[in-house]
């Protein structure tokens, strides 16, 4: 539908300029100046501009000639989206905190999150199509009549671009937070995991990690990159990178006999991880490096614990009776607990009386109440005293 040239001249492009300037002022106030009175003054001025032109555009659209109503209404709708995005932004900004002393985040965190996510989308929808509609109007500024088809096509084009941008941004964001990845490299050396990093961060005593690799070893470089990621995580962590050939003394001190070893030392506790020096053979171990280091760290950084349990009536045995016996044995549990840095393991048996197993880092003692030799074991006596203290609970 065509309208007369007199009507065509009634389009006010300057409102869109004020609209854009208002948005820019809000951006400058909130993101560039960011704090202080000037920031809020610019924000207020920008908002005032945007809201005023939205109302003004609405009033003009009501009086617009019949042929131009679609274009003007489209602009009102777009200004409305822009104004709504500004309102939504202000609701999630510090404005509420500064004016009424509270924030939306405190009262309705879910609503706050929803608004924070949606206002950029609203802003894009309310801004980009304005530019394309104004370009369409500009192309017809000398035309005797407006071509309504052009305005609609330009509006749809602008909306299409806005929706494409929203879709692309949402997809990229989803991809980023999914953190799904495939490591196809030759060496897939694990990186320190969250658990390992947390253990190291929570260290309260010095821990030394000493790696023994020749300087040109590819495996050594992979281990060094892993250790590099741990370095600086805690002031109690000390990492030494040595070549056993050059520092055999330090190796002897740590009980290391050659290269290809990672030694972890905390006080008197020592643990080692051995790795092959050939890259081909070390690939699998390198992938599991974080698991190995993690379990050792768990082992040596935990304080010693005492674990008590009853042997019962023979439901559990120390070793399988024969090949068909598939029960989980006490020896197995003992070993697992030893791995977890358990200092004592006490078993109580109805049949044999008290049996006390003191499981240290290196050795284990077994004592029976009826055994004539038990009082001579000093450590076992200490353990028995503990049984006396906790026995009722254990036996009960």
């Amino acid at each position, binding site marked *: 539908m065509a309208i007369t040239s007199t009507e065509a001249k009634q389009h006010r492009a300057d409102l869109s300029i004020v609209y854009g300037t208002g948005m820019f002022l809000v951006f400058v106030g909130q*993101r560039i100046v*960011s704090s202080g009175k000037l920031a809020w003054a610019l924000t207020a001025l920008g908002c005032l501009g945007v809201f005023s032109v939205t109302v003004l555009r609405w009033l003009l659209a009501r009086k617009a000639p019949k042929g131009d109503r679609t274009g003007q209404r489209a602009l009102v709708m777009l200004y409305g989206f822009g104004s709504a995005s500004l309102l939504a932004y202000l609701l999630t900004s510090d404005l509420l905190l500064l004016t009424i002393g509270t924030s939306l985040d405190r009262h309705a965190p879910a609503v706050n999150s929803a608004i924070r996510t949606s206002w950029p989308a609203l802003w894009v929808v309310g801004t980009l199509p304005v530019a*394309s509609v104004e*370009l*369409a109007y500009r*192309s017809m500024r000398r035309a005797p009549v407006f*071509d309504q*088809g*052009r*305005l609609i*096509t*330009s509006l749809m*084009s602008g909306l*299409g*671009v806005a929706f*494409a*941008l929203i*879709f*692309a*941004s949402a*997809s*990229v964001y*989803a*991809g*980023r937070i*999914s*953190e*799904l*990845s*495939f*490591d*196809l*490299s*030759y*060496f897939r050396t694990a990186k320190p995991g969250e658990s390992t990093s947390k253990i190291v961060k929570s260290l309260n005593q010095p821990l030394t990690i000493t790696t023994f690799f020749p300087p*040109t070893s*590819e495996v050594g*470089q992979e281990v060094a990159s892993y250790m590099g990621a741990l370095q600086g995580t805690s002031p109690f962590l000390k990492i030494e990178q040595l070549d056993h050939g050059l520092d055999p003394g330090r190796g002897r001190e740590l009980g290391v006999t050659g290269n290809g070893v990672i030694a972890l030392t905390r006080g008197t506790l020592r643990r080692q991880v051995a790795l092959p020096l050939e*890259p*081909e053979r070390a690939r699998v171990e390198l992938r599991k490096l974080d698991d190995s280091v993690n379990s050792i760290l768990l082992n040596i950084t935990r304080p010693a614990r005492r674990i008590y349990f009853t042997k019962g009536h023979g439901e559990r045995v120390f070793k399988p009776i024969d090949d068909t016996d598939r029960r989980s044995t006490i020896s197995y549990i003992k070993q697992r607990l030893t791995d977890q840095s358990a200092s004592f393991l006490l078993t109580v048996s109805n049949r044999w009386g008290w049996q006390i197993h003191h499981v240290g880092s290196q050795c284990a003692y077994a004592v029976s109440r009826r055994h004539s030799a038990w009082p001579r074991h000093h450590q076992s006596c200490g353990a028995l005293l503990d049984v006396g203290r906790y026995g009722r609970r254990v036996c009960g």
Partner: protein
Amino acid sequence: MSNVLTIAGRDLGAYFRTLSGYVIFALVLMIDGLLFNAFALGEPDRRSSEVLAKFFYFSSGTTMIASIMLSMRLLAEEKQTGTLVLLTSSPLRDRDIILGKYLSGFAFMSLMTLSTVYMPLLILVHGKISWGHLFSGYLGLLLLGGTTLAIGTLGSALARTQVLAAIISGVMVVLLLTCWLLTRVTDYPINEIVLELALYQRHFTSFTLGIVRVGDVLYYGMVSYVALFLAIRSLEARRWQ
């Protein structure tokens, strides 16, 4: 779809019928070969995976430049020679024209990139690389090249001449390459957005190390999608501008 393939086939043939296609192809192979010999193989005591990563690092630059050179002619040449009117007045949608031209450029760029595969295979003479690492690197190169080509297609759709198209595309690519520097002077969340836009720094490095991150693949796909979408809208804007 047949319209898209018809245009793609026609434009792909044009690369091989003209000298410019062969010149770009030969230049890319020569520069890649020189850089590979000088910097990747030339330095002693380096792990095979590092040599391979270096190769992908150098190849990414040549792939991006070649993509801009390949894309600058896609639509701008039609405008210069006045044949765009023939295309737009034929029973084709704007979408078919843009996608067909992009596909032809992508096919040529892929052929050119994959023809460098003998270089990383040379590492196998004295070293060991994983096929997965090789796949990851080439996937990254194709994605980076495809994205640059899409940006170049947009530049070509916006410009009237090929030179102007190359300049516009170059500026857009350089902006995307260097925008991460703005993270030093911007606050959250602008810095996060700017960093996420970084064409190379944020999204390509993991491919050179043999790591395929779904987020990076999505990023390249989405930038290509937006660039092509804008190119279609730009061609379509002739109706209302």
